[in-house]
């Protein structure tokens, strides 16, 4: 009996007309030129790679353990006549921590300047996941929050008021159960709207009210901008220096700040066949 129910559940509802993924073309690794770059960020084990696979048609390894995606994986899809490059980043709890895979994720969002960053949050552990979402909102306006594993949350008796959350965060929040294909159409539409500027985001940000701190940030950010021409997010970097973040201090010393690591991103994927 349960097997029957599972087969029904496992089928994505692509046949259903209300579920509009018809505009989606999965392009696998055939990136070529693209109009927009989208980054997938989130705590470990929240379903980033599952979302990546359902959008690109690739089969990036999905597994239930941390550190699985150690370099970034890239794929492509087109939606609404726009071509998107999608970058699946390693799971991270914070933009402030310093393990190598977390640094890859952090540097890409900070300095790679994706057009849209999808923050994948675990709806069943929302409080813990919102910390990263708030940090990402500090450094970019163009964010969509994918509230994944909503099926698991429902199973635990948790309901999430996504409209209130959208209002509080100032960016679109899309409930999803990516492994069942639920919410994929809504995610695509939100990403497309944010990429084109059709959805005016108003990200919630912390206010730093201390005048001395503010003065120090302004001075330091100006110095950073002259030392590293074109550096995005100089204010954020200045705050990290004031805090004594060792990895940022080192990057400034060595002059490597803002250099995006370029691992052989396609190595893992060339062996994968498109669906």
């Amino acid at each position, binding site marked *: 009996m349960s097997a029957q129910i599972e087969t029904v559940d496992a089928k994505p509802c692509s046949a259903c007309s209300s579920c509009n993924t018809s505009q989606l073309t999965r392009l696998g690794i055939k990136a070529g030129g693209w109009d927009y770059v989208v980054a997938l960020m989130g705590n470990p084990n929240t379903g980033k790679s599952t979302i990546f696979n359902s959008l690109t048609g690739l089969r990036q390894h999905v597994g239930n353990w941390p550190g699985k995606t150690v370099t970034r994986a890239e794929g492509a899809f087109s939606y609404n006549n726009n071509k998107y490059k999608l970058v699946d980043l390693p799971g991270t*709890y*914070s933009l*402030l*921590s*310093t393990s190598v895979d977390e640094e890859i994720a952090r540097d890409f969002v900070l300095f790679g300047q994706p057009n849209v960053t999808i923050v994948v949050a675990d709806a*069943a*552990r929302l*409080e*813990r996941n919102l*910390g990263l979402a708030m940090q990402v909102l500090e450094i970019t306006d163009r964010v969509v929050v994918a509230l994944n594993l909503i099926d698991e949350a429902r199973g635990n008796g948790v309901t999430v008021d996504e409209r209130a959350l959208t209002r509080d965060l100032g960016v679109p929040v899309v409930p999803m159960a990516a492994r069942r294909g639920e919410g994929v159409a809504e995610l695509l539409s939100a990403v497309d709207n944010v990429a084109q500027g059709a959805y005016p985001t108003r990200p919630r940000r912390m206010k730093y009210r201390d005048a001395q701190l503010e003065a120090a940030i302004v001075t330091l950010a100006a110095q950073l901008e002259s030392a590293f021409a074109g550096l995005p997010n100089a204010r954020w970097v200045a705050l990290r220096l004031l805090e004594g973040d*060792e990895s940022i201090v080192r990057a400034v010393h060595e002059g490597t700040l803002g250099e995006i690591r370029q691992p052989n991103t396609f190595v893992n994927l060339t062996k994968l066949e498109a669906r």
Partner: protein
Amino acid sequence: MTLSQLEVGQIAKVIKVRSENAERRRMLDIGILPGTVIETVMRSPLGDPVAYRVRDAVVALRREQAELIEVQSVAQETRMEMKR
């Protein structure tokens, strides 16, 4: 009292995080900060590490990490409230 002194099933509230540098950062990032309510879930066979429930997620901490988290045992009402 520190987190390491809790028995399995006991619930406590964090008073102070005495970890330093990257370690401190990590604790804050996984949601352990003053005011956070933590439950001891289980102990590994050798007693170290220990699994704790923090904001609906289970995390494992080594003894020397848990020793740096100062906690205060919480009353039964808070416990019921937490479990809802």
